[in-house]
């Protein structure tokens, strides 16, 4: 009996030892996705595109301090606005926290884009079109991310694959532009004219199309022609690309909306003027941060009068120059309801901050026009990055700079002016005067729109110039930028790179 028990125990132990093979210790992450099982089907590619989209969206769901350096936008120099104001008065240092959203989200998008570029071709279960579109999308997103990075910081690290590198050196600005151009040329051929599935609704493509790639390439060429590269041969290329977009605008469904104010209506969050934009929604269940927009009523509303945050308002000199008309009326708020009382209305001169506030981004599901009160700090506002109006103005400027201000250049800018309620531009302007008019026009048209004005000032080397008009009531500049030496043309590189 006893020996039987002993043997039983022995066998029992052996069985237990036997199970101790490594199979018991294998890891099978059933609830997760591994790189080996991903990037195979068309659906996988669509999920990779969605993830890339939201990384990029993160950069534009909030104000960036970087473009406060321009002359269209400012804020008060008090309390928690000091870091944004530091850009406004050329005092930002590398610890400034109001620029890290751009740095971090653009590079997060680049990482996702690099991963998709490395893998889209492996999706053997997807169609040729799906693979091509995914690749084109990734190239486009990498290009647009680097375009923002280099315009903001100049020389920056330029990872082109997903390998990690500590202390990665900065790439030369010219090399970054070469990559951007090469990527966009690939995107131009690989992207579709029209997306299907969730990337297109209300007849608007949420994702970039061939047309978007061309429009961005036109912008890139225009920028390359200006500071710092000053490759003036690029004006012609910019004009040609912009013309392609204008000529075939029906292919992609681009058009100016009839009324400027309509662009900013929440019901027009998807509209035909959007060539490239980031889309948000604050109505979805348990809103993840990047799915809601903070270009929202609260940051752009006056504090004391309407309970907003005073995060951004218009510079007075710029406002004063801004030509009157329906565009100005849609850009700036006219009536301010003291304590949200519609019966107690003041003008901007009588607000606490004595500045006009922007009306763009104001309309939202969460905004009550009757009292000017918002009940949510997330909004569903779209961040327009390239509107069709910009394609027209890019063409006008590039055409003038390469072939002179011909009729087609006039026609392009006048389309924009006409909608703004302005007379056609004075005929017969010199190249320089025409160009200055276009740049000014861009300023009015795109005031407070995600940095367009700031980048125009930098590429045209007019940062110092426009600041010479700065209104005396604005916070004084801590440092003087120089158009000759290009000081304060670039944001300080974040302390945590």
């Amino acid at each position, binding site marked *: 009996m006893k020996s039987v*028990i002993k043997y039983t*125990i022995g066998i029992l132990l052996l069985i*237990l030892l036997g*199970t101790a093979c*490594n199979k*018991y*210790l294998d*890891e099978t*992450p059933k609830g*997760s*996705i*591994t790189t080996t099982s*991903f990037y195979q089907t068309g659906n996988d590619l*669509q*999920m*990779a595109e*969605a*993830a890339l*989209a*939201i*990384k990029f969206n993160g950069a534009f769901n909030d104000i960036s301090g970087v473009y406060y350096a321009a002359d269209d936008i400012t804020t*008060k*120099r*008090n*309390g*928690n606005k*000091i870091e944004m104001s*530091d850009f406004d008065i050329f*005092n930002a240092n*590398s*610890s400034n*926290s109001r620029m890290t959203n751009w740095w*971090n989200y653009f*590079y*997060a998008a680049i*990482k*996702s884009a690099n991963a998709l570029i490395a893998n889209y071709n492996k999706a053997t279960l997807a169609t040729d079109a799906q693979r091509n579109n995914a690749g084109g999308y990734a190239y486009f997103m990498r290009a647009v991310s680097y375009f923002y990075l280099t315009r903001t910081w100049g020389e920056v690290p330029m*990872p082109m694959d*997903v390998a990690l590198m500590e202390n*990665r050196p900065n790439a030369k600005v010219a090399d970054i532009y070469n990559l951007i151009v090469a990527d966009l040329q690939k995107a131009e051929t690989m992207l579709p004219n029209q997306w299907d599935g*969730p*990337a297109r*609704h209300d007849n608007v493509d949420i994702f970039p199309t061939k047309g978007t790639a061309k429009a961005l390439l036109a912008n890139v060429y225009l920028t390359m022609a200006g500071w710092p590269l000053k490759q003036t041969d690029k004006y012609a290329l910019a004009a040609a690309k912009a013309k392609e977009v204008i000529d075939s605008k029906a292919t992609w469904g681009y058009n100016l909306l009839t009324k400027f104010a309509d662009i900013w209506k929440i019901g027009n969050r*998807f509209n035909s003027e959007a060539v490239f934009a980031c889309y948000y*929604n*604050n*109505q*979805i*269940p*348990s809103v*993840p941060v990047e799915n809601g927009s903070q270009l929202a009523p*609260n940051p752009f509303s006056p504090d*004391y009068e309407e309970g907003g*945050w005073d995060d951004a308002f218009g510079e007075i000199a710029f406002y004063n120059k801004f030509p009157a008309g329906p565009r100005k009326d849609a850009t700036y708020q006219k009536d301010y309801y003291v304590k949200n009382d519609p019966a107690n209305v003041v003008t901007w001169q009588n607000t606490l901050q004595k500045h006009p506030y922007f009306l763009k981004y104001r309309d939202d599901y969460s905004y009550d026009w009757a009292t000017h009160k918002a*009940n*949510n700090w997330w909004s569903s506002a*779209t961040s327009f990055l390239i509107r069709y109006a910009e394609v027209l103005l890019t063409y006008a400027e590039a055409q003038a700079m390469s072939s002179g201000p011909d009729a087609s250049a006039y026609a392009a800018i006048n389309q924009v002016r006409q909608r703004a309620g302005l007379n056609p531009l004075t005929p017969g302007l010199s190249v320089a005067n025409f160009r200055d008019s276009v740049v000014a026009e861009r300023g009015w048209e795109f005031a407070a729109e995600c940095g367009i004005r700031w980048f125009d000032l930098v590429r045209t080397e007019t940062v110092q110039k426009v600041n010479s008009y700065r209104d005396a009531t604005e916070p004084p500049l801590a440092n003087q930028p120089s158009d000759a030496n290009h000081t304060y043309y670039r944001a300080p590189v974040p*302390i*945590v*790179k």
Partner: protein
Amino acid sequence: MVIFEKKIGLLIACIFLSVIVFAQTKKVTGKVSGPDGTPLIGVTVLVKGLGIGTTTLQDGSFTITVPEGSKTLVISYTGMENLEVPPTDKMNLRMRSKNAQLADIVVVGYGTQKRRDLTGSIVTLSAKTYKDQPVLAASSALQGRVAGVTVTNSSGAPGGAVKIRIRGANSVNANNDPLYVVDGIALGSIGLADLNVNDIESMEVLKDASATAVYGSRGANGVVLITSRSGATGLPRIEYNGFVSFNKPMKKYDLMDAVTYAKTANLTAGAAVFADPQSFAGKGTDWQSMLFTNSVIQSHQLSIAGGKEGMRYYVSGFYVNQEGLLINTNQKRLGIRSNLDVKLNNQMDFGVNFYVARINSHNNDDMGSKGNPVMGALTWAPTEPVYKSPGQYNRFGISPIWLNPYMSIRERNNDSIATVGVLNGKFKYAITDWLTLIINAGVDMNIAGKAYLNNDWISAGNMGSGQSSSENFTFQNSNVLTFHKTFNKHDLSATALVEESSNHFKNFNASGSGLTSIANGYHNLGLNTAQSISSGYSNWSLISFMGRIAYSFNDKYLFTATMRRDGSSKFQGNNKWSNFPSFSVGWKLSNEKFIEDLKVFSNLKLRAGWGVTGNQAIGPYSTLGLLDGVIYSYGTVNVSQGYTLGNPATPDVKWETSKQTNIGLDIGLLNGRLNISADYYNKNTSDLLLFTRIANYDGGGNYLKNVGKVNNKGWEFMIEGTPYKDRNLSWSTAFNASFNQNKVINLGRDSMLERPYSIGDGLFTNSIQVVKVGQPLGTFYLIPWEGVYQTDKGIYKAGDARYTDVDGNGSIGFEDRVISGSAMPKFTWGFNNNVTYRNFELNIFIQGAHGNKIFNTTYAATAVPTSDVKFINLADAANYWTPGNNGSTWANPGSKNKSWVESTQFIQDGGYVRLKNVSVAYTIGKDILKAATAKIYVSAQNIVTITRYKGFDPEASTVGGDVDAGIDLGAYPSPKTVTVGLQLKF
């Protein structure tokens, strides 16, 4: 302890069971009395080696049939020393009280040992130590009572988080929680807080590596072995324990009145935000009073324990209803335990322990985010009313950006219901008198459901509801073969173990928005117009082999060696397996002639040990490089799943290893009335499992590496004594102290790693803590604050906050940060006193922690304008610098230069001395109540705290880890409590 002895008695009975030739038997009678001569009822009388036994009757008498040839009877009883006597007729036995703890049997990993034979550093905490205190959780029982164990009540929420560390923290990224083992089952799915503290008979804290190495890859952070209560042979004992506690906030912040607030806000805004600050005179909302409330806790526990020949039971039920200090927060817990031990025959025993409880929490979770109600209560403008009009909340105030905190907590509807349990079955087979097999199989589980309903106040214009459910099971099977034999002066025991553990986790979440009506609560998610679902799964497993040899010679020289080999699923390839050896020696000097002759020491023992343990407490799949799942909506309300490249795969990652040396001395003096224990330890943790930050230009995130080394070394002292004792009055006292020095020795190629900051964005904007070589974990890294400028200097105006430009670049920023102390306490202590006078008992328990810093973000948020809180509210800050008030160090709120939250201005001394408990108990004996004895007690807890910390509670902390510890970001404070309790024993 006594129950252990009884168990051990049975065990010894089994071990010594040999082939017995049954011959004749004889009947033996006797009577057992206590030290004072009164008869003892229910004393266990066993024939040694046979397991034949009985218990004494009402008059202390017993009758037992003893086989011829049996030479010894074992007599055992609670609190008394065991007697071993030869069976004679009409015995008259008097038992002696137990001499302190010296005679105890201690539960060690996978077995037991006599306390006097221990070579490792193991401390026993018996339930008796805290019997008259309203203890709701096992962690409160441990706090301040065991040298080397640091307990911090990070959250005062009902059932809130508690941090327990044994001999400091070893790991940067892996978990630093000790391993909890309940009746042999290592908890993998639930925590210490999920147990019913009243069911605990004792806790053994295994501190050094020679004690914990038998737990190998799970032993690096120390091990707490929990033994649940079991029945004793005899009449059923019914016990009721109940108390009611009344809680109050320990303190309040001194905030501005509405007039001062309005004036200061005007200054901050640089304009008349409030046209007429004086109009608020006598008005204003006291948000702290709105949110904090006096609350009540009720606890009831009923148990019945007993046994008959061959069968013992302990059954208990409990109910706790705990209201939080914050309104509309509470937790209810109820559960049952049934422990059953059955003797099948002379060789076989089995036992089944079963514990299951239900924990219902209401609004108790997610207090960590910056806009939490505590932060809201302190930062919301006193000028704001709670309601705009009757029934209509004032949703947004002028500052901060967070929602009305009263509304947020009052309207919140967030429930969590968890069913937790530990079940195990144990089979013991005494193969021979020297060989025993124990098979223990068990599971611990947590089946949890959560649900929320966001009404129109919580989520304006977009109501919604959601539910989630998860199940988490950890299975364990341990098979232990124990050998024990003595030959002459040699005593040898050996243990072999095969163990398998595996954990399974599944969850799913469903949430929706666009709910049109809240009439259905969160019970019909289909009513949401937009919906989203997600689910998850994980699994880990562990296989272990362990061998241990313990040898003693002549009861003087002790030697133990162990080896454990673990295989873990969390690592890949050859890194799955590793070995964890240990050895230790002990020298019982008090058994040496030359010490005995001194007649000073009742006990004197020198111990030394060394061992290796591991830490594999990282999540499953951490090394695989999984894709990151994200949600994208394409601008619509319908969400889509997206995936992108996550952190890279790291197949080379292996265990974190701790090597620990321990030297200890146990001294017993005055015949055991004074016991002193001292330990020195030195613990080196290498191959740290470190999540290393990936540069933001490479996409950010982090990946796991084995780099670096952390050292913990320190001293522990424990003094226990009975300074005075006579028939009516006795005073017993225990003091323990621990000094721990924690230091990062190296970090591979780096000398410093900044911590990602996971909380507080909008209040601070860069990490405020680093891991740095030469510094302890939890080190703060802040911009040095110098007060205010007294005169204008450059762009700075008099009255602006002044900081040191450490790097001299002419501008203040994060380059200027310096090391500014650590969140890790250097010295912790506890001082416990019990005075008994006749039927009265008085307990005074004081506890303290020193040498740690806290970054008080809560305080900072009330004192400096930030992106989230634009106007300040702290009363002190209203006394800001002006030319006429140049003694103030508070910057002018109207300053045009930035005041940094991330500065040393807000680092505060976290040291404290706390009167943790004062209680008086009175016992009414059976002579009065006939059927029962009753004990009534009144206890006050946390009533006095001496601290320089300026927040609510120096224990409260928002982040639970060690490297990001010591940040108070609206941490939920513990209350001060007065309790009335009653114990009835039938």
